[in-house]
């Protein structure tokens, strides 16, 4: 080095590249291996890094702040740095990495199910590394998984049971476990004695483990004696589940992450994959940039995936079915339908074919605003591909016609034969770590574990024998119906595990009304959530890092959670609390570990029959896994469909303008709600993560520049969003990400909750609420 570069280096040493508060690049330790630059470019595909004239990593912005670039703090660069030049600033450890304790477990956030390593010391999780053990993430992580785990040791964690001893007006006071359990059990039994078992209900969580969910539904059916149980999958993908059950005989996603990496064409519909499932998104990019796969995005918002798409269709909200039928129409008319597959593997073809006639590109353009040539391009890309893959999200399901949308997706897969082969199929992307498992464990539409029918005498007999009590016979009620039941007074007592309806359910004013009207509300949670604050008894629980168990991810992959640290204070694992309560209510449940619960599940649910904890460590197993030597199943339907005839069925679905909550003069805008990269669900965890909340401390409403002008709004100023249900005050972000006439607002922010605005209308077949369409208007606040 000559003097000039010496001086330059000296200057650089003083100025590391910083992505506050997540990581920094310290030049003193950099050996110019360029791993950071390349993983960002080759895996994340973001314009962040470049190389400076002396060969060091630099930022494309020319500054030293990552915020000036497209960096979204995934920290993949930190993970590959071989020298520690990229330093994790969220690392709270005191000991060098080599002397810390490492626990391989599964991330508790979205449904991708990334394997992670928790580094702990002195009983605290101090850092997170990706684990290379699972095919779900192959060593990749996003910002939440890598830097968002500090909620585990947040000072607001509940550490001791709380109880209202003297009615609703008395304060929540700390108590012993003995008193809390006895109190809850006595009061549940009182309500049951007075009003019958069907006045009791339970809501469980897609963020709790399979084992937690299994014992919870068992408690509801055996100790409560009712079928009044549901969980939050109702609010997201139940429409997909119902549709797929009808179309192909099973509600499950057919393909896997390895298939995503193999696919050569993607239809990404109503899924902001890059933000909501970042690691899945990077696998789509891998297929595109390493193997030349084509991407079609169908979304009214200009999401990040649009920048990587070959074709982007931007339909008007609520016209999914028209667009999807239009694609089918084009495929059929271009002679690209897979005749061999259709005749061998499907039913109801002729009727379906006839029904497609009217969905000409011209008609579709008229209904949805999607230009005809683009529609044709998109159809050809998907139909002509060797391996076509469908990915969809809430943009399909959270409509009044959510099931129709999902059926139209399934039709496309059957029409082209893109299912049952490597690199093909469909994945409705699950939003939470264990949506799939929660559904598998306690069913949907009144199903017993493993989708056994509650009305089928044989299935009932099987479970009555296993559990030793008669199965309840009441009609199933969904989350929204249970909440309505509470308002009406049909439901008198509710047990909510790890769920926050006071943030996630539609029309919060009504939800609050209902929960307050209950005789007894028992909530178990990590924090005193908006829902827990209304409870009569609150049980403190262990977080995902503090317990053993399993999550089933969006590819049906059952993976093992391992306890890294002890829960705070007296907090206990969900399953332990549920079993204690059940015993106190008079129904014995004794398990010495989650592994024992899984063994019982395996004995009752055939697709989980080979799922024993000792087999699930390295990368897990994908169901169906039929016995203890079964290798699991990467993709479904290779030879037949699980229907009585073994064939899948085309469904005739039509574009219907439901009319409900349509915009009018008073409420001229369509409010769309959804998620952001940095936050998760109602924010109980991510809002308590220092880094994540630093990135997104408040919700902003996306407003198109034209609408901003129309309503006199300015970027960064406050505005009021008003709907028929309520209003909230939020900051305005003027952006063309959202189309004109539509606004977008995320639902993570308890101080200004999106669901104060939404209505409790839902799709009739699945009861999934129409969160994506609420008529609204904006008012400037001065």
């Amino acid at each position, binding site marked *: 080095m000559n003097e000039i570069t010496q001086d330059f280096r000296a200057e650089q*040493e*003083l100025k590391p590249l910083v992505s506050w508060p997540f990581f920094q690049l*310290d030049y*003193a*330790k950099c*050996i*110019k*291996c*360029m*791993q950071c630059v*390349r*993983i960002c470019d*080759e*895996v994340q595909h973001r314009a962040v890094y470049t190389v400076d004239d002396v060969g060091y990593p630099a930022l494309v912005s020319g500054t030293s702040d990552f915020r000036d670039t497209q960096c979204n703090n995934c920290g993949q660069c930190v993970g*590959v*740095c*071989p*020298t*520690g*030049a990229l*330093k*994790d600033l969220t690392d709270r450890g*005191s*000991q*060098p*990495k*080599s*002397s810390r304790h490492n626990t391989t477990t599964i991330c508790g956030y979205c449904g991708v199910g990334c394997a992670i390593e928790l580094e702990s010391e*002195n009983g605290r999780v101090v850092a997170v590394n990706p684990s290379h053990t*699972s*095919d779900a993430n*192959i*060593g990749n992580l996003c910002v939440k998984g890598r830097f968002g785990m500090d909620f585990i040791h947040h000072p607001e964690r509940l550490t001791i049971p709380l109880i209202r001893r003297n009615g609703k007006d008395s304060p929540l006071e700390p108590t012993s476990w003995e008193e809390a359990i006895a109190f809850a059990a006595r009061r549940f039994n009182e309500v049951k004695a007075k009003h019958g078992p069907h006045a009791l209900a339970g809501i469980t969580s897609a963020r709790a483990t399979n084992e937690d969910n299994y014992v919870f539904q068992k408690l509801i059916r055996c100790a409560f004696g009712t079928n009044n149980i549901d969980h939050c999958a109702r609010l997201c993908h139940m429409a997909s589940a119902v549709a797929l059950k009808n179309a192909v005989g099973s509600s499950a996603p057919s393909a896997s992450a*390895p*298939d995503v*990496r*193999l696919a050569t064409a993607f239809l990404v519909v109503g899924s902001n994959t890059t933000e909501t499932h970042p690691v899945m998104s990077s696998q789509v990019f891998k297929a595109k940039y*390493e*193997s030349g796969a084509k991407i079609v995005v169908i979304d009214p918002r200009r999401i990040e995936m649009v920048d990587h798409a070959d074709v982007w269709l931007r339909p008007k909200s609520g016209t999914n079915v028209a667009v999807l039928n239009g694609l089918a129409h084009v495929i059929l008319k271009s002679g690209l339908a897979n005749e061999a597959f259709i005749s061998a593997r499907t039913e109801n073809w002729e009727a379906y074919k006839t029904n497609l006639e009217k969905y000409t590109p011209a008609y579709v353009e008229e209904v949805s605003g999607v230009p005809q040539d683009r529609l044709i391009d998109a159809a050809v890309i998907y139909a002509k591909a060797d*391996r076509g893959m469908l990915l969809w999200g809430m943009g399909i399901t959270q409509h009044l016609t959510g099931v129709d949308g999902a059926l139209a997706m399934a039709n496309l897969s059957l029409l082209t034969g893109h299912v*049952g082969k*490597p690199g093909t199929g469909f994945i409705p992307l699950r939003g939470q770590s264990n949506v799939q498992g929660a559904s598998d464990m306690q069913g949907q539409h009144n199903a017993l574990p*493993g989708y056994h029918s509650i009305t089928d005498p044989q299935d009932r007999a099987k479970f009555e024998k296993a559990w030793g009590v008669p199965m309840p016979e009441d009609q199933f009620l969904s989350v929204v119906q249970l909440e309505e039941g509470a308002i009406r007074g049909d439901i008198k007592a509710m047990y909510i595990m790890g769920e926050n309806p006071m943030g996630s359910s539609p029309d919060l004013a009504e939800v609050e009304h209902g929960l307050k009207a209950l005789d007894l509300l028992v909530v178990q949670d990590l924090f005193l959530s908006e829902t827990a604050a209304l409870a009569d008894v609150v049980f403190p629980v262990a977080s995902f890092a503090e317990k053993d168990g399993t999550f089933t991810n969006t590819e049906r992959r059952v993976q093992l959670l391992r306890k890294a640290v002890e829960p705070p204070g007296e907090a206990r694992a969900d399953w332990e609390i549920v079993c204690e309560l059940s015993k106190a209510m008079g129904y014995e449940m004794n398990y010495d570990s989650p592994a024992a619960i899984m063994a019982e599940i395996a004995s009752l649910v*055939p*697709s989980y029959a080979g799922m024993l904890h000792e087999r699930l460590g*390295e990368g897990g*197993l*994908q169901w*169906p896994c039929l016995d203890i030597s*079964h*290798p*699991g*199943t*990467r*993709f*479904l*339907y*290779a030879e*037949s469909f*699980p229907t009585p005839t073994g064939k899948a069925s085309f469904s005739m679905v039509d574009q219907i303008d439901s009319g409900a909550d349509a915009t009018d003069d008073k409420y001229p805008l369509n409010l769309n709600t959804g998620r952001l990269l940095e936050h998760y669900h109602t924010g109980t965890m991510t809002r308590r993560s220092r880094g994540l909340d630093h990135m997104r401390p408040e919700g902003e409403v996306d407003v198109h520049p034209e609408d901003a002008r129309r309503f006199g709004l300015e970027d960064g100023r406050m505005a009021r969003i008003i709907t028929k249900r309520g209003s909230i005050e939020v900051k305005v972000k003027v952006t063309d990400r959202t189309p004109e006439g539509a606004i977008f607002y995320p639902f993570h922010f308890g101080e200004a909750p999106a669901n104060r605005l939404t209505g409790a209308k839902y799709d009739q077949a699945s009861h999934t609420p129409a969160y994506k369409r609420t008529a609204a208007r904006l008012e400037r606040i001065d």
Partner: protein
Amino acid sequence: MNLTVATNGKDSFDATQDQNREAGEPAAICSIVIDGRPLTSEADRTILEAAKRAGIDIPAMCADPRIKPTGDCDLCLVAVEGLADPVKACMTSVRDGMSVSTVTDDLKARRKLRLNEYLTNHNAYCEPPCQSACPAGIDIAGYIELITQKKYVEATALIKEMLPLPGILGRVCPRPCEDPCRRRQIDGEPVAICALKRFAADKAVETGLPTQLEPKPPTGKRIAVVGAGPAGLSAAYYLALEGHNVVLLESEKEPGGTLRFGIPSYRLPNSVLDQEINDILSLGVELRVNQRMGTDYQIETLREQGFDAVFLSIGAMIGKAARICGENAQGVMPAVEFLARVNWGERVDLGKRVIVVGGGFTAADAVRTARREGASDVTMMYRRTREEMSAAAHEVHECEVEGVRFDLLAAPVSVTVHKGRAIGIIAQRMELGEPDASGRRRPVPVPGSEYFTPADTILMAIGQDVDGAALNESHLSLNRWGHIAIDESTMMTNLPGVFAGGDCATGAATVVEGVGAGRQGAYAIHAWLNGADERGIANAIRKRKPQFFDIGASAKSAAKMAHMPVLDPEKRVSAFRNSGHVGPVDNDGAFAEVELGFTEEVALQEAERCLLCRCQASGACKLQSLSLEYGASTTEYKGMEAGK
């Protein structure tokens, strides 16, 4: 459920090639040899992947299966039979019949060269310089960071992973760690590492919470540790934690060795000593006092008693002779003897005028103790200057505060004796010449400069020897200085199962070196008991660290080191007894602890000064592990010539 099953292609190592297999397109198989092992591999794999799958690790800095290989790191070079030059394993596909060597002398040399080059660009410490300098290897940055978080119990527990006597060392350690502290490059003064250690330990004691682990399950092995000084206590502690049954044999009536009768209680209160020794004994260590080796038992006796191994840590407690005329006269005694008598509670009247010969810790302890025993005119006679004294600077300062006179550049020539009793010393002026082996400038006598200084007592503090009487062993090898001869890499003596460490093996050294040696001895014995050979033992106790240039410090704002609050000198000196006083010296007054310890506020401020030089990635860093493996270092790199 009636679902058709496709085989799960579960595989964590994801490369593009695997996609073909996942898509059901198998590749051709070829036979190769890597490092003499015949293997088969799909033809579309690189040598690096094929080797990894066979469990052969080829070093690489830039190979991540998610990123396309570029070969930039130049480390994955391998030799392929038939090719003159090595190839990059990450960029070269396997071929049928290929024979690959991953480790050859040529490759090792190339890799080392490349790593040296990397290291010159990598201006960082893996381990903070303080930790490298600490003979016990304490994770100093770690405990200081815990102090900043007010986690004093955890901080103390972290210290005790390497050093079982934090409260004691926090008071008496000569602080080799503070010398290289990078904080000095910013504001001239190191972080008060030692004082913070004391602070954490004292705070942890206040809480009453445990700071040490539970011992592992019993191994059934019995080990005798001979000598309950710093090395012996430390060895007993770590052996007990490993589940061994330890018997600690002590020749005196109480344990502690030099800690108890060498170091005066105004520096180390007995309460602190007792507390930490009791913590060690609480692990199930059996203490037997008044057991003098060579008198009450010998090594052979211990074997007969069924001990599986022996650790000798008998220290070096006999004051060296000055070999000058008159040193056997009445009124001349070794300083260690004087200190021992005082520490055992004896009142020793030295008269008014005392000369202590020497400039080390013992000399400093002797002059200050002499003042406390009533000598009004105390002189420390040293043949070099104050800078060369091996006593810590702050202690020399305290000597001065307590009214000790220094006679520097002076060496004793003879003791003047009158009627069998010493009445003074004839000394010679010295001047400093060339540096000697210890790096200090050698004192050279100035001819004709002899002078006389009167004295009632002369204390010799010029070094200590191992007690020859204790080593009355016929088979144990000693070296030419009379120390127990050991192999430093294994701590083994010439007798099987007999290990030694501390002053008795190295000659008189510091407490922290003794404690470090005790821990090493414990792990050497543990490895030996588990069947390790000499190499295995050496590996078990070797401390590996890369050699790096100094990197300079750039940091936060300057802040001066916190100063240890001390007992008011006026109060101290007024409590000193006059000569002729009979009966014990008042313990609460004259021998009260001088250093008072930091307040929490000061400690927290001081802890904030730490630059936390260590690297988060240490232990997980590829550059570190490969540099250690290939012996790379920055100090070896020649670099480019100027002007090129």
